[in-house]
């Protein structure tokens, strides 16, 4: 074991001085430290900021990559669904084997009061559209045609108070009649009190009535309040579609004439569309 070096050399004295300076720096008032530090930090910590920014950028890129991958998957799914609608074979669940045909159409006008009850589309009688034709989007049922001109048609949406559609619970296959309420939801009528409707159940068209093919998605059950005195069980359904976001729709064209006389009383007399 070698003896310790002398500790009073000039190096030691300078070292002690430096340590005393460090102590003095520590004893500086809080505000002074805050004022001094940024000047040095700007220079010395700049690589830290660069690396931190790089890490943040990489994290952002990773998040964006994951988000875009999800978006790509969703778009691929939607693309496949749209292709499915456009090139649908004759025998499927949505389109039964009776040669139904879909035509795509743009929304060009809406009713000026609520924007949700009626809208005009760019296909008409010349395209095979007739009164009663069902109008849908990939998310679900939109409404039906209530007036036709050669090149345009007026669509009554599911939010129009007179709209009715025969539906069924996709899980239990129990049928009901859907109509809109005042809160942009649908109410199911004639639901048996013992019927099994649960929150989250998907409601689809039942095919009854001859307008909407069986199995078109309409909405999801969001509320089934208990009303012991009611004759039927109230069931509230939130539609899958957002009517305000719809720009294009598909019209289901049938090769046979629809029964249009039962729709006469649903056609609002005050609404006209230009020829």
């Amino acid at each position: 074991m070698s003896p310790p070096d002398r500790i009073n050399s000039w190096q030691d004295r300078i070292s002690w001085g430096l340590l005393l300076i460090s102590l003095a720096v520590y004893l500086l008032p809080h505000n002074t430290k805050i004022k001094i530090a940024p000047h040095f930090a700007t220079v010395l910590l700049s690589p830290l900021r660069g690396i931190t920014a790089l890490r943040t950028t990489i994290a952002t890129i990773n998040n964006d990559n994951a988000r875009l991958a999800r978006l790509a998957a969703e778009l691929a799914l939607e693309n496949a669904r749209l292709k499915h609608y456009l090139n649908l074979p004759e025998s499927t669940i949505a389109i039964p084997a009776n040669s139904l045909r879909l035509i795509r159409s743009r929304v060009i006008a809406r009713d000026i009061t609520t924007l949700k009850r009626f809208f005009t589309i760019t296909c008409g009688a010349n395209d095979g559209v007739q009164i009663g034709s069902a109008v849908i989007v990939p998310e679900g049922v939109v409404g039906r045609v209530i007036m036709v001109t050669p090149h345009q048609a007026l669509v009554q949406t599911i939010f129009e108070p007179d709209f009715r559609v025969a539906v069924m619970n996709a899980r239990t296959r129990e049928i009901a009649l859907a109509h809109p309420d005042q809160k942009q939801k649908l109410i199911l009528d004639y639901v048996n009190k013992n019927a099994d409707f649960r929150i989250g159940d998907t409601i689809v068209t039942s095919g009854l009535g001859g307008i909407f093919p069986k199995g078109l998605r309409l909405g999801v059950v969001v509320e089934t309040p208990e009303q012991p005195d009611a004759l039927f069980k109230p069931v509230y359904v939130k539609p899958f579609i957002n009517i305000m976001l719809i720009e294009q729709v598909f019209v289901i064209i049938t090769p046979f004439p629809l029964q249009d006389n039962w729709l006469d009383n649903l056609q609002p007399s005050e609404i006209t569309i230009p020829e």
Partner: protein
Amino acid sequence: MMRQFFAFVFIYLLFVLQSTLFPVGPQFVLLALIVFALYETRLIATLLGIWAGFCLDLTTPTTLGVQMLTLGGIGYGIAVVRNLFYRNRWHNLLFTITGLLLQQLLYYFVDKNPLNLNTLLITAILTLTLAPLAEPAVVALFYRHSKK
């Protein structure tokens, strides 16, 4: 002289590495400082410690001076007492434990904040694991041709 200059640069690079990539990780700066203190003069060891502490203090300006004093003291202390020890592989571990304890305790008394034991434990374990490797690494970089 160039070696000492690069030692300062090396300490700074380790500080950047420690502060950015391994915020909860080994104390690279402390490990390098201990090795430099074993090989450099007392003045250089103190200066390196103060420099390392200054860099670390800038990340928490409210306690500016604490790390300067602690690491400066550690550098100077090791440079003073290094000849008391036989040069075996355990002395580095002992200095590291002492350094870590000093650093954390002083910070605790100054900052008045309770120590985060989980972070402290992880940091201590990783630092002590790397401690035996620190000297060969620094010596290979800076003192390859030194007879000390």
